[in-house]
């Protein structure tokens, strides 16, 4: 049975029909038409569907949609301030980290969520934090370099406040 689910998506209130077996990824992609979270495995293995839920990065294919009631969900669509990209987005682009790009929206959200908690990480900490996000093109090295560059402030200060925790 479906019911109406209400939550905040990138700061805006939304409502959408959701069944009790639907995942957050299902309602974002199929219900609301937000295709930036990708479906790579639908098992929580690959991280392509990573979004930020009340300040925590989650794999949206493993979150039942109805548990998001009243919560704040942030997808990569909500990161840029108009044309001004988030420092993580700029870093990924300029360091040439994304290749095919399919893992990228999830990778951006995992990195943003991580840097919010640990703004001055070591390389090992970055690898561990992002290790739930797979990239088959194998762009890992440049992703690590880009996160480290962001942490060094190469792309300006991180925006105030935790993303998705409006």
């Amino acid at each position, binding site marked *: 049975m479906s019911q109406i689910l209400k939550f905040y998506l990138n700061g805006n209130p939304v409502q959408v029909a959701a069944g009790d077996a639907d995942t957050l990824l299902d309602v974002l992609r199929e219900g609301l038409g937000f295709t930036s*979270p*990708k479906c790579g495995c*639908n*098992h929580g293995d690959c991280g392509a569907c990573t979004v930020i839920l009340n300040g925590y990065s989650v794999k949206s294919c493993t979150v039942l949609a109805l548990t998001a009631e009243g919560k704040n969900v942030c*997808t990569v669509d909500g990161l840029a301030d108009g044309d001004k990209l988030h420092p993580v987005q700029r870093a990924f682009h300029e360091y040439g980290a994304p290749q*095919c*790009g399919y893992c990228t929206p999830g990778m*951006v959200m995992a990195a943003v969520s991580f840097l919010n908690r640990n703004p001055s990480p070591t390389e090992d900490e970055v690898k561990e934090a992002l290790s739930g996000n797979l990239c*088959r093109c194998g762009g890992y090295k440049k992703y690590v370099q880009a996160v480290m560059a962001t942490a060094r402030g190469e792309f300006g200060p991180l925006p105030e406040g935790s993303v998705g925790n409006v």
Partner: protein
Amino acid sequence: MFNSVGKRVPRYDGIGHVTGRTQYVSDVRMPDMLTCKTLRCPYHKARIKSIDVSEAKKSQGVYAVITKDNVPHNLFAMVPDHHVLAEEITRYKGQNIAAAAAVNKDAALDALAKIKIEYEELEPVIDPEEAVKDGAPQVRPEGNNHLFDGKSLTRKIRRGNVEEGFKEADFIVEGRYTTPSQEHAPMETCCSVAYLDASGKLVIHSKAQGLYFAQGDLANVFQLPLNKLKFVGGTIGGGFGGMNSIHTDHIAGLLALATGKPVRFAMTREEETLFSTIRSPWIFKIKDGIRKDGVITARHVEVLHDCGAYTELGLYAVEKNANLIAGANLIKNLAVDSRMVYTNKMPSGSMRGFGVNVGQYAEQVQLDRLARAVGISPMEIRFINAFHVGDKNHTGNELASVSTIETLQKVAAMSGQKLPEKYLAMSSAK
């Protein structure tokens, strides 16, 4: 010297990637779009004794159910021997038998469950070394062994005189190496969205690595002229060779033609991993002769490629493998005998390093074995046997731009290995 060439220009669609605006085939949605699911064979090999889709067609929410009888030309692929939907004898587990287009996934699956099908399970052959034997269960009516040039069991390379070369050798070293099945595992699973546009043209949003390649192949399946068939794509969530084979475009297209509605066929991760083309297994036997001074005097390589149930790109892989299996070494006396055999597994596709990196694994591990036999270092054996500019490689190509020696010198310096003066003084120029 150059203005644009050599610059670190960021990716053309990089902003789209980091903002999530890049659209992949799996993101394409259309109004009134149907979902496709397929019935896959549960056996490695079976005879379909009967199939009845009449109840399935009446299932709620279903617009079409198709079998081989609904395919205008039921053969596809680079070597067009693969069946779009199975004929009487199925050849591998997961082979598509029937397909349904319905209002949603559940309705499509319900319809497939109503197909009445009677199988006779047949004895398969899985092990390539069994499949080559006389009396092995037959994968295809033409026999299990591929006949090269229509007649030869082996694809040959012959250079110099191998027997003489072995006589020249101080050591004979033999090795056997195998590589397993690998999956391309792109992050985006294979997906198609097919529909008829306002002019009646069949449009297929495809994950194909070669849009024209797929178009040419499937024009034949659909029996459509190229002005009635348009492929859309060019931006995909990873290919690695897997998208040189067609997995969903053919069936989505047939269902769009059958229903007149947009049809989406997306493989799940499980379908992609279990039933798409793969890097298929290889077996290499290498016998080398080497002199005390480190010169390889002769090499005989026997290759067996397990092609799976249909040719797909397996034959191409065997050809390319044979040309390069002796590696980046000047070997004057060489014999290569490659075989390709069919088994009841998913077909051999192309995968990055296609046919070559499997051989390179065998060849480069064997090379270290040779070095140990002679008592020289891994660096030394590679310098001693390196190609130079103007050398002919193992298929008789004259080599123009050659760099084994230079890349060895550089990588030695990078990794902090001191090379003897004579290797530092070497150059690929003759």
